[in-house]
């Protein structure tokens, strides 16, 4: 390393000051102007997080939100060189530091994750789509779905209710989030546990719709013949909304 330890230390001192805002004396600097660096770096992080998590920011009190933001900026070493990915580290930081417990708002982690997922699915690199045909038998052919999707299980219905209204609604909620192939827009579909398991078996076990509904019906102790029409209507809706692209060749 060609850099002297002294110069290294000076650079570290300035970077630390930017992160914490704790006054520092740096030799050969104008003390009255150092604060611009704190302000500029902090504003970038604060702005990126507010853009990424508008609902969480609105849901939490200003004090709660800025407690999380300030602590994250001061203590977390942001790893990604890509600002658009940085908010994911904020979600992980808040989860690891148990702010949901500290603030008595157990839905915070899920809310942050849900908002991050929307960004990630919208922006993530395109995934390969298997060759598929558009015409087929919805019940008996194997289905091809849009690859940029996530089936999310939630304890709190953060996609339906806000703030303290969530506290007495702890349960099991499922949402399918996916990127539409043609427009790149993100769609959200609420699912029952039955339909969530049906989607999961279609995607993960590559079962056709009929076999998937059969397996799910057995798991739930429901009569297959009663659930098949419901499942078929659901699959038609998934196709209309762009989650189901077609059929394996």
């Amino acid at each position, binding site marked *: 390393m060609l850099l002297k330890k002294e110069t290294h230390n000076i650079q570290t001192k300035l970077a630390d000051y930017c992160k914490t805002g704790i006054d520092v004396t740096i030799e050969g600097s104008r003390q009255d102007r150092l604060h611009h660096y704190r302000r*500029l770096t902090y504003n970038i992080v604060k702005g990126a997080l507010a853009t990424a998590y508008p609902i969480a920011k609105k849901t939490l009190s200003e004090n709660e939100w800025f407690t999380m933001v300030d602590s994250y900026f001061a203590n977390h070493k942001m790893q990604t060189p890509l600002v658009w990915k940085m908010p994911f580290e904020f979600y992980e930081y808040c989860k690891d530091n148990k702010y949901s417990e500290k603030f008595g708002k157990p839905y915070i982690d899920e809310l942050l994750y849900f908002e991050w997922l929307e960004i990630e699915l919208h922006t993530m690199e395109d995934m390969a789509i298997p060759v598929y045909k558009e015409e087929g038998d919805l019940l008996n052919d194997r289905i091809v779905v849009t690859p940029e999707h996530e089936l999310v299980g939630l304890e709190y219905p953060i996609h339906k209710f806000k703030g303290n209204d969530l506290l007495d609604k702890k349960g099991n909620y499922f949402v399918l989030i996916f990127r539409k192939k043609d427009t790149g827009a993100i769609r959200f579909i609420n699912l029952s546990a039955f339909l969530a398991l049906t989607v999961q078996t279609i995607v993960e076990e590559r079962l056709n719709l009929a076999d998937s509904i059969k397996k799910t019906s057995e798991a739930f102790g429901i009569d297959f013949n009663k659930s098949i029409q419901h499942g078929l209507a659901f699959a038609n809706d998934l196709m209309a909304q762009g989650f189901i692209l077609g059929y394996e060749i």
Partner: protein
Amino acid sequence: MSISGVGLGFRRDIAKQIIALDSNRPKFIEFAPENWMQMGGYWKKKLREAAEIYPIMCHGLSLSIGSPEELDFEFLKELKKFFDEFKPEVYSEHLSYSKCDNAHLYDLLPIPFRQDAIDHVSERIRVVQDYLERPLAIENVSYYTPVAAEMDEASFITQVVEQSGCNLLLDVNNVYVNAFNHGYNAKEFIENLPLDKVKYIHMAGHEQVSPDTIIDTHGQPIIDPVFELFEWAIGRIKPVPILLERDFNIPQMAELQAEMAKLQNIVDKVWANEYAIEKRNS
């Protein structure tokens, strides 16, 4: 260099408009690779559409060439992959640091103007150029306080350029901002730079936040004194591409086009003879 004339920063806020322009188009577009890397979906589609229409320049944000620690080769690998797809004519970065103690800060901190920093940064630039197999142009950044400086800024920049063999991106607005903030003569400063190494010029607006401080915001129109400094400066430089940067407070496209036209008029006036020679020789 095949690109000439005035280009415009490609920002998401105006991406659709830039793609749809059918007259008074920028001659090229510039974007930060970090704002588009590892992306797919809607925005990647827009970037590809723009790249079909316009020549590309890339101006980085996160290389952090002045960091007091090791280069991030994982990042360089991704950068190289990105450049393989978009083939920018010029890749430029800031002569500053934005990562320290293994943490990104996402803004430009001033490197101490010291000999050991010159040696360190020059070595890093050489490694980056070798790895990416392309020259790097480094930009003179605006700074609000020197930090433990042992020499003046022009000497620091000049030695980095000479020692590393890189090119220079001359940001005329940054020269104006620094001259104002630190009380030096902008023209003398420019004359002391290795102007034969200038391959690209940036122009932007700024904001005066106190009687003795200007912040380089890229959020305002270019002011007349910066246009005047630009006209004076390019009279000392061979023709290179010029970029209009506007990152915040983005106005109507017509206003940006008018600013580009004003820059182009100055360029045409000052470089008329140079363009004629280039045309004759081509």
